[in-house]
């Protein structure tokens, strides 16, 4: 229990003192996971909505794949992305390995099925009458998509928050494709896991408190929008 006290004290010290390194790491965390979340929302929300409207028989199969994608282990995603991005891999010439860009790519792969799957479930739960009514008023496919997303925003925002929560919290993929390079690709989770592996549990707890704090601030603002009725 002393560890917790130590961690909390340390967390406050870091934040109040404005430890430059920790701030930089926190900022990179936000940038990488934020970007990955935005990209997966931009793709996953329309995709999930479109899938939920698709009445084809293939939908169930695709839903199965998407739902499985929600359970992709980050280490595995990290490994697969590495295979493509390694210097000797097919996309090696881009020299993206061990850069924040590589982390964004891996995190996008992780968040995308989550955002898509939940959007699909949320929009699929809307009354089909809304769709008919909007089409009868002349909605184009895109307009319909926008309207349905807005109607299901409770679920859609939960989907985005879950996607963000997932990537901001994952460590396996970031560690693999980012490499936890100080000042370049070190984010809060990789730093925490490094401190744990060093046995610096107190400092690890401090970092984790910072991370959870950031997640809370982001998700509380999204929750505000979500619960606004």
């Amino acid at each position: 229990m002393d560890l917790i006290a130590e961690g909390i004290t340390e967390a406050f010290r870091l934040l109040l003192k404005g430890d430059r390194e920790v701030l930089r790491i926190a900022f990179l965390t936000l940038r990488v996971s934020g970007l990955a979340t935005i990209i997966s929302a931009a793709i996953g929300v329309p995709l999930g909505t479109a899938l939920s409207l698709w009445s084809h028989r293939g939908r169930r199969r695709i839903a199965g794949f998407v739902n499985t994608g929600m359970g992709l282990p980050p280490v595995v995603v990290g490994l697969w992305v590495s295979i493509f991005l390694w210097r000797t891999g097919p996309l090696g010439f881009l020299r993206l390995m061990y850069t924040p860009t590589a982390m964004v790519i891996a995190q996008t792969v992780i968040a995308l099925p989550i955002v898509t799957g939940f959007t699909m479930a949320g929009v699929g739960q809307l009354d089909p009458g809304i769709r008919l009514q909007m089409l009868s008023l002349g909605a184009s496919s895109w307009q319909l998509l926008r309207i349905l997303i807005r109607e299901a925003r409770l679920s859609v925002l939960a989907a985005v928050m879950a996607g963000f929560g997932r990537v901001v919290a994952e460590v396996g993929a970031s560690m693999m494709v980012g490499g936890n390079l100080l000042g370049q690709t070190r984010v809060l989770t990789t730093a925490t896991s490094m401190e744990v592996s060093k046995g610096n549990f107190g400092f690890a707890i401090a970092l984790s408190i910072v991370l959870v704090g950031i997640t809370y601030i982001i998700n509380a603002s999204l929750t505000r929008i979500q619960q606004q009725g």
Partner: protein
Amino acid sequence: MTARQAIIELKGVKLKRGSRITLDVPDFEICPGENVAVIGANGAGKSTLLQVIACLLHPGEGQVFAGGRHVGKEISAIEARRRMAMVLQRPYLLDATVFDNVAIGLRMRHVPKKEVQVRVDEALALFGIGHLAKRHGRSLSGGESQRVSLARAMVLRPELLLLDEPMSSLDVPTRMALLAELERIIKRTRVTTVFVTHDVTEIPFLADRTVIMAGGKIIADGPVRDVLRQDLRGALSQLAGAANWLLQESGEG
């Protein structure tokens, strides 16, 4: 043909739901300026017919033509729909203000903002819901919702107006006022309408042609008087009887 090109034409339309055929219309057309009333028992297929006309339901068999063009081939469903507006049987309001609910169709058509404001205000006034403009679509009473739903369709000034039991939840004075108003609009703008109703007293105000449906089929189709004669006498006399009873009683008291 060119002189009276049908606004909508169904040819050999059959629609299955599960294994049951819920609509079977070999040939049906609506010409410009016609005002058609559709009546029939619950489950007769009235709403289904309207949804097929509105290009919302794609029939498994047969073709739908809008302005002579095959929907889905020569003209897209969206394009066909943009000439019409429909009031569904159950009003589905968006999770937004009443104003936004009524404006949505205009915004879909990229009508300039100022015009939207003017036209929506007009429509709200027409249906006596101007005071609700800023209220939330989901907080309305049944009749208020139905008026919003009507306003939302009328504001589009479509070529073809499809109304599925549009007045079932309206109070009597509003219904009376609206009947008169709609009659006036129809006469003035010569808009084509198809409306479903269970209240036969509405028919003389709004229709010049009546279609009776049963079991997914159109079993009678023609001028109002011809069609209604047999079918309605029984029901109407009962209704009128009740009305008279009331009037008498109250006259007496």
